[in-house]
């Protein structure tokens, strides 16, 4: 793949990388820092990418690794997970029309890191369970259970399930399966 093609392909994945990065760090500035670092790394190791394979997955893996290595560094420097969390949770009350989205965002941010990323990868980024497992370097079953726990927890935080008026309906559950394994 020529440098030109590679750059064009990188460009095409940037919007998705930013969305994933936002779900990890919460502020646009930090997310873009993370994407920037990802692009530099991807460029440096572009010879290890096989053209025709899943570039999006490859880039997501780099971004995720970068994120966790930064987290580890930061933990050593300043131990302030609360502060980071508070920042991520900050909402924008002026956006009245988007209030329910803000509530939803807050609920997503309350999820444990591993559950949140699994949910985003499968439920929003369009990766299959298998691809998400590759990106997170874990077993497919682990991803499945993280996604499942994330959904349940979100439902609890948002109090989606009323007083048991909705009974579990296995058939409808199968039909309405929200996971979109086809990328």
């Amino acid at each position, binding site marked *: 793949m020529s440098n030109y093609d590679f750059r064009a392909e990188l460009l095409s994945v940037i*919007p998705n990388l930013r969305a994933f990065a936002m779900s990890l760090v919460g502020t646009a500035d930090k*997310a873009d820092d993370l994407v920037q670092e990802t692009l530099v790394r991807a460029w440096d190791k572009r010879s290890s990418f096989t053209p025709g394979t899943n570039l999006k997955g490859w880039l997501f893996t780099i971004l995720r690794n970068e994120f966790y290595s930064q987290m580890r560094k930061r933990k050593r420097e300043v131990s302030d997970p609360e502060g980071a969390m508070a920042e991520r949770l900050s909402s924008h009350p002026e956006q009245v029309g988007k209030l329910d989205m803000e509530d939803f965002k807050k609920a997503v941010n309350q999820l444990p890191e591993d559950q949140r990323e699994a949910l985003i990868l499968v439920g*929003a980024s369009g990766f299959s369970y298998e691809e998400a497992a590759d990106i997170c370097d874990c077993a497919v079953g682990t991803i499945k259970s993280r996604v499942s726990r994330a959904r349940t927890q979100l439902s609890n935080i948002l109090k989606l399930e009323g007083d048991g008026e909705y009974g579990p309906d296995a058939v409808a559950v199968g039909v309405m399966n929200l996971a979109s394994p086809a990328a």
Partner: protein
Amino acid sequence: MELFCRSNVLAHNYKDAMTLYGENTLTQLSSNRMAKKDDEVENSTGKPGMSPDSQAFIGLKLRELYDDVVAEPVPDRLLELLGKLGEDEKKPKSE
């Protein structure tokens, strides 16, 4: 598959068993069995007891949250960076 096989066996023995245990007991037994199967189905798809409405809501909101960011224009600083990445190759810098 396994479920079908078991149901067949169940159906096969049903008549014989009914004469032995009576209809009520059997109906209860088989509905217990069905309930257990349902649980297994839920666990394997990973949505224990969540209503389709809740799932649909979560799915939609999640995509909305994500797609809002995807729809944003790529920030200039990232575009500039992409341009620079190519430059390095053409003319190796000596600074």
